[in-house]
């Protein structure tokens, strides 16, 4: 039996997440869509906190909700005209999209509810089952070279980010 607080938080966040997901992809105004996305990202971050991954939640908020959203807003401002509501979606395409989305969701749902999923554990049990993940552990995991340690991908990501910086400059530069 999980605590009532957790359940309430869960429901609020889950509802926010689903509703704003739907709104983010249906809103005709692009800036609003970006804002709804922001809410979804924050909601995801809250889930991370709830699941006991404080560091990850912080990263989600800082990088996603903080950094990437700024980029989005910035590019939206750069590329859209005032009062641009966008054109009406054509019905044919919307049918296609809905059927694809529904097919995917149905498939996933069936898979979730019919496959032997490990459902016997509650959040509280899961949280007490694992050791607390502190910054010390995370730092060792990222900087170590042994099993279950990730120095190489970490460095690869750093190179990727560098490449991305250079690529971004080169691509977007004025000629």
């Amino acid at each position, binding site marked *: 039996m999980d605590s009532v607080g957790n359940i309430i938080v869960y429901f609020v966040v889950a509802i926010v997440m689903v509703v704003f*997901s739907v709104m983010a992809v249906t809103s005709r105004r692009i800036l609003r869509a*970006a804002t709804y*996305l922001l809410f979804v*990202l924050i909601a995801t971050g809250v889930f991370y906190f709830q699941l006991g*991954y404080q560091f990850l939640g912080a990263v989600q908020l800082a990088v996603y909700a903080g950094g990437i959203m700024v980029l989005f807003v910035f590019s939206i401002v750069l590329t859209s005209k005032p009062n641009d509501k966008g054109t009406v979606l054509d019905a044919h395409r919307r049918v296609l999209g809905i059927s694809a989305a529904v097919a995917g*969701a149905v498939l996933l749902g069936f898979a979730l509810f019919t496959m032997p999923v*490990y459902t016997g554990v509650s959040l509280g049990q899961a949280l007490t089952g694992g050791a607390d993940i502190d910054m010390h552990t995370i730092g060792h995991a990222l900087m170590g070279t042994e099993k279950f340690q990730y120095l190489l991908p970490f460095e690869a990501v750093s190179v990727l980010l560098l490449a991305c910086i250079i690529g971004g400059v080169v691509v977007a530069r004025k000629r």
Partner: protein
Amino acid sequence: MDLSILWYLVPAALMFACGVYGFITRKNLIAILISLELMLNAADLNFVVFNRYLFPGQMEGMVFTLFAIAIAAAETALAIAIIINIYRAMGNIDIREITKMKF
């Protein structure tokens, strides 16, 4: 009432479906990018949830999510650079008009 693994997976699946819908139907390139982020986010959430419920003693799901976030940041930055470039070249970012690479 227990918050079992399914409780977290269902909203993620719905978020993913929304992403698919958005990707297929939206015309604005940035909107498409937003849909993409939704799908990515759903996948991230799945990683973390499976990590927490199935292998609570380990942290692989979390680390992969961490990397995924870093890569998503890189990808978004580059995509936005490309979008701005397209906007500069063509005056709009409607995906239906960008078909020059067609056969």
